[in-house]
Structures are given as structure tokens and as C-alpha cells.
């Protein structure tokens, strides 16, 4: 049975790094894995999505609407944007963090109120204050790995030693802080 994960956020938030760690673990565990990411114009501060699929045999590298088992949103409004991709019984893991798009900054649109509540009314959700947690350990940029830590608990896959995978995939100079971020993410109560 193929499992589908969609990671969404704003260009530059580190979704690609998370999918790199995630897929490294899945490959090591012996799964067939496919992953799809975006480059170019789509990366420039826009809304981005990365998809990871794993199972015994995976054909398509991408999914369509209503196919994701897990949605990981690095930004809360992006959770709403991609909610249609979740299966009705899928789980959303949401960073309780807003990044204001240009249209809102310029006063031409309003950032929607109650995005997290709306998601919680529709799906089973794990809300993580990843940005604040990352700041508390001294590096706001680690919010992606905090979120990843929280996500590994939802994933199951207890056979994968994620700490080992992080050691194998991350550059030495960012490893220590990210291991801390990962453990903080693991501590988040579902």
C-alpha cells in the first residue's frame, strides 16, 4: 500500500531539506520511494509543495486531490490552500506560523482568520508551534526540523532511526542544532 505525504509552505522554509531526510530514511528502510519537488520561478517566495510517496512499488511521483495521507504545512495558510489534497481521514501537521503574502502586506487582501480552527474542523490535526520552538533553541530556521520531529511520530515507521539519518544527511555544522530541533519536535503532544 503506497503512503502519500505532501509538504507545503513558502519558498525558502526548508521543505526540500525535510523531504531529503525523510526519503533517505525511507530508502534505508527498503521502501520504493518517489519524490517530486519544484524549482525555478515557483521557488521565489511563492507557495511550494513537495510530495513524497513510499510503499512496495510506487509508480507516480505525484498525487492529485484527495490522495494524501499526511499533509505537513510549514505555514498555516498553506495548509488551507493544499487541504484538498488530503484524504478525508488524512492527518494535517501544521506549523502555527503565518507568513504574510505580498498582496496582504500591500493591503490588497486580508490574511484569513481561523485557518487552524478551520483545518481542525475538517481533519485530524497536529498543530505545532514550530517557529517559536525553533526560536527558543536559538535558530528560527530550524522550524522545519521541529516539524519533521513531530511528523515522525504520526508516521509510525518506528524501525527507522531518524537521528542516525539526520547525522548522515545534514552538514556537520548544522547537525547539533537540528538534532535538538528534532527532539523538541518529538516532544510535541499529539
Amino acid at each position: 500500500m503506497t503512503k502519500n505525504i505532501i509538504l507545503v509552505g513558502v519558498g525558502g522554509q526548508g521543505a526540500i531539506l525535510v523531504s531529503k531526510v525523510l526519503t533517505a530514511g525511507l530508502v534505508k528502510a527498503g521502501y520504493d520511494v518517489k519524490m517530486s519537488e519544484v524549482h525555478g520561478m515557483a521557488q521565489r517566495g511563492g507557495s511550494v509543495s513537495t510530495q513524497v510517496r513510499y510503499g512496495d512499488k510506487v509508480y507516480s511521483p505525484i498525487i492529485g486531490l484527495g490522495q494524501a495521507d499526511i499533509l505537513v504545512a510549514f505555514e498555516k495558510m498553506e495548509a488551507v490552500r493544499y487541504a484538498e489534497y488530503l484524504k478525508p481521514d488524512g492527518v494535517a501537521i501544521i506549523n502555527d506560523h503565518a507568513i504574510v503574502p505580498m498582496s496582504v502586506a500591500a493591503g490588497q487582501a486580508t490574511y484569513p482568520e481561523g485557518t487552524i480552527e478551520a483545518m481542525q474542523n475538517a481533519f485530524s490535526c497536529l498543530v505545532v508551534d514550530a517557529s517559536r520552538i525553533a526560536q527558543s533553541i536559538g535558530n528560527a530556521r530550524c522550524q522545519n526540523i521541529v516539524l519533521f520531529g513531530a511528523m515522525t511520530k504520526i508516521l509510525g515507521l518506528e524501525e527507522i532511526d531518524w537521528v542516525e539519518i539526520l547525522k548522515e544527511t545534514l552538514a556537520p555544522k548544522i547537525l547539533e542544532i537540528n538534532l535538538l530541533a528534532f527532539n523538541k519536535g518529538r516532544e510535541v503532544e499529539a
Partner: protein
Amino acid sequence: MKHLMTGNEAAARGAFEAGLKVGSAYPGTPSTEIFENLPQYREHVYCEWAPNEKVATEVAYGASIAGVRSMTAMKHVGVNVAADPIFTATYNGVGGGFVIVSADDPDMHSSQNEQDNRYYAKFAKMPLIEPSDSQECKDFIKEAFALSERFDLPVLFRMTTRICHSKSLVEFCEREEHEPAPYKRDVAKFVCTPANAKRHRPMLEAKLAELEKYSNQSPLNTEEINGTKIGVITASIAYQYAKEVFPADTSFLKLGMTYPLPMEKIKAFSKKVDKLYIVEELEPFMEEQIKAAGIECIGKELISNQYEQNPQRLNEEIYGQKPATVKVDSVAVPRPPALCPGCPHRGFFYTMSKRKDFVICGDIGCYTLGCAAPLNAMDSVVCMGGGFSVAHGMAKAFEAMGDNGHKVFGVLGDSTFFHSGMTGAAEILYNRSHVIPCVLDNSITGMTGQQDNPGSGENLLGEPAPTIRIEDVLKSFGYQNIFIVDPQDLTAMQKAVDDALSSEDPAAIITRRPCLLIKKIKHERGLCRVDADKCRACKLCLKAGCPAVFMEDGKAKIDAQLCVGCKVCAQICPFGAIE
């Protein structure tokens, strides 16, 4: 051991294993990482960024004429630029194996159209290979080199965004060297005089007839017989989608070589099934040919030729099954791409945005984003290098209409200038229009992810390279007043525009400051902050269109994570509230 890699990485690996000796390319999403992954094989492969796709194709073809295996790669619209040498190369034939990689972009993730470049294979009369995952990118490109040599033709290797940028598992092989024969001049083959072309014309048809025979036996075209009710003929990424959508007893004819189509094989397959579907992304390239051969099938009646496919969409189109989704009671506002926070060239567009009488003809790349609100500083973007020439055309039209009110600017980046902007700069001078050409020089090819170019001082291998100075080029053309300015200094930027406008002699503007994403440069970084007491909420700072600046609780605020301290907003603030 298997490696999880993108199609682009795998294509580079495959070319290396195939004994590639010379490669030349111009970056373009989604093709860029193919050549970014070649320098790791530098001991065996010479690779470079050329100024544009036409040059890259000519370089690779030249290497082929000299006898070695060669490759070029580009995005789909790049093939339009490279079409001229390609259409002659098919008439002449090759020396060493010559592979042209076209990376198409269904859905226009990062492109201006979603042209289906498979038609180029039919149009220019060359074999077409289409991989459906990373392993096939690696394996099929090796077959492409062999085919090129066997049939004496360039081979079009067509990938798409989801082939290029999705990762799947790949097994490696060793490199196989292909020692070329000593070079011998062959005028009849490689000099495209009309007489030689006339002789080549029927030879090309004969090669295609042989290729079709080969296609019918090619190991790239495989049958999977699982039942007799439904048959699917498919290729490329659409194969992966079809495998997930059709029931287990569906038979497949999966094509890796899609031009010339293996029509005998297709006929035989069609007889084995009751109902035949053609599943292909974008245009009915295979379907038209299959229907023309009198084979009954279903394709574009159900499957759209617009945007990219995915399994859910295909399922809906074939079986009418809508996916179960849950409506969320909230609406996300759009988040279009924007110039990066601290983009050095924001100051240029901010300055241009203040004048309603300016007509600004832009170009492909990051600077296209000057069109976005609140900058709104762009009238047109057409193609690579088109900024100057489209501006010239508009200026001539305004002249013809007796309209003296519009001031026309052509705007492009440094890489686009070397790509095909220089000819437009010559045009403006030669045919005398009052266009001011502006080169926004960030010393790199930005949008595709920081690739070097003739103005950046390094080459693809990361070696120092001669820097061609844009101002020297313009000066040698005859631009007498060239205003070189730091666009982050708004006063200097305004002065450069005013001076260029009032110049009697031909004038050009170069705004120069490197892209902040260039890793090898140490950028000075700071942080701007709003003094809430001084802020009068006039919102003028928002006019910079910087993603880091926003309003909160009635005051301007700057996102400390995004801000790099370029101070453009601080220069705009009339109350000195930003420091």
C-alpha cells in the same frame, strides 16, 4: 546499491556512463540540474554553460562532427532558439553520438507556455526517446547515444518537469569509453550547401524508414500483457499515472521510443485488446499518428491536452470518478512569486514604477517579477532577449502614431543580455529608436539557481573565466552615455534614469549589484527596523514590494527573518522611521 536521484541527475550519470566527452548547455528550468551534475565527471567529460541554447547546440554538434559523443540540454522553449542548427544536423547526420535533451514544462511551473516538443522530432526528422523515471533517464540516454551513431542522426531526448525533478531509485553502471576515429574532413556530409542538402533529403527519409523498423524491435518499447479487455499505449510520465489508474488486468504498450512510432507493434497490440486507450500528457502526438494508421482508440476525447496530468485527474477523466475531498471553511489568498527580499534590483523597478508615462519591455528571468504589484513596472515580456527588440518595435509604433508622450525602456538581465539581448541593443542603435536599454546586472543567471555566464567571471567547472563587460560591449556598439549605477541607492538610480532620458547621444543604463543568493560572495547583511513612534502609517514603504515589509496593528513592520538590510524601504520612508 541504489541511489535516490532526480531524472536530471540520472540523465547526467547516464551520459557519463555512455562515454560523453563534450557537453554544452544553457540553463533553463526544468533542465538546469543536468549540466550542474556534469562537473563531477570532469576527469572524463568537458562541460560548459554556453551563452544561449543555439550556441550550446552548435558547440555540441561541432564536437560530434569532430567525432566524440556530445550532448546539449535545454528547456522546451530553448529548443526554439536552437532549432536552426538542429534542423540542419538531421540532414547532415552526426559524427560521434549527439543527444539533444529537451525538458518540457507541462503546467508551466516555470515557463511561458507548455509547448509539446515531441513535435520537434517529427518536424526535424529525428528519433525521439522518452524516459518515464530516473532509472530510464540513465539507461535510455545511453541507448540514445548508440542510436545516434547507428542511424547517423541527432536524437531528441525528451523529459518533462516531473521526470526531471522527481526522484526515484537508480542503479549505476561503469563508464564505457568510445574512442573516436581520427578526424577526417567530410565536405559532402558536413557542409550544408543546397547540393548536399538535396542529396541528404532522400537519405534522411531512408534513415527514418530504417528507424521505424528498429522502433518495432526496440527494447525501449515493451508490452505488458495482463488481459484482453483494456489496452493502454503510453509513454513518459503518463505511463506511471496510467499504471495507478487502470485495473490490474489492463495490458500496456509502454513506449520509450516515440518517434518514429513502432506502428507494426502498435497494430499487433491493438488486436490483442477490446478497447484501446492512448494516454499521453499534453498534445495527441501519438494518438494522431495511431488514428491516421486506421487504429481505433480513445485519447483526447477524455484526456485533456492542457496542463499536467496526475493519477487522480486521469482517473476522473477516464472513469468519471471524483476524488473524496473535504471542504475547509477558510480561503487562502494567492501567494505569487516576488522579487526576493533585498533583491538588489528592486530599486530599479521602484524608480520605474513612479512614472506613468514609462513603457517597460521586460524579459525572461527574475526581472519578469517587476510586473508584480505593487511595483507594476512592466508592459510586456515575450522571450529571452526580447526586451530590447520589443521595446524598439513599440517605440517605432509610437513614432508612427505621433505619440511623443511615452518613454520606452528595454529591460533585461546580464545573462539574457549575453543570451540574445546584444542583437536587440544593436538594433536600437542601427535603426535609431529612442529606447533606453537597461541591463540589470546581478552577475549571475538568477532564476534558474545561480549559474555562471560570460559576465560572471567563472565557468561551469568553477574555474576563473574571462569577464566580458557589458559596458564594453555597449560602448563598442556606439552607446555613448552608459550610466552604471547601484540600484539600491535610490537617489543615484533616479539620477541615472533622468540623465539617460535627457541624453542627446544614445544612452544605456546598467544597474549593477550581485544577486544575494550567490554563495561565493560575502554579502554585507544588516537589518532594518521600524521606529513605531515615527511611523505614520503612510504605507509608502509597501510600494517597494518587499516581502519583508508589512503592516501590523496600524504600523509598518519588518520581518527580521526575511530582511537583509538593503535599506530601500528606509530611503522611501519620508519620516525617517526605518533604520
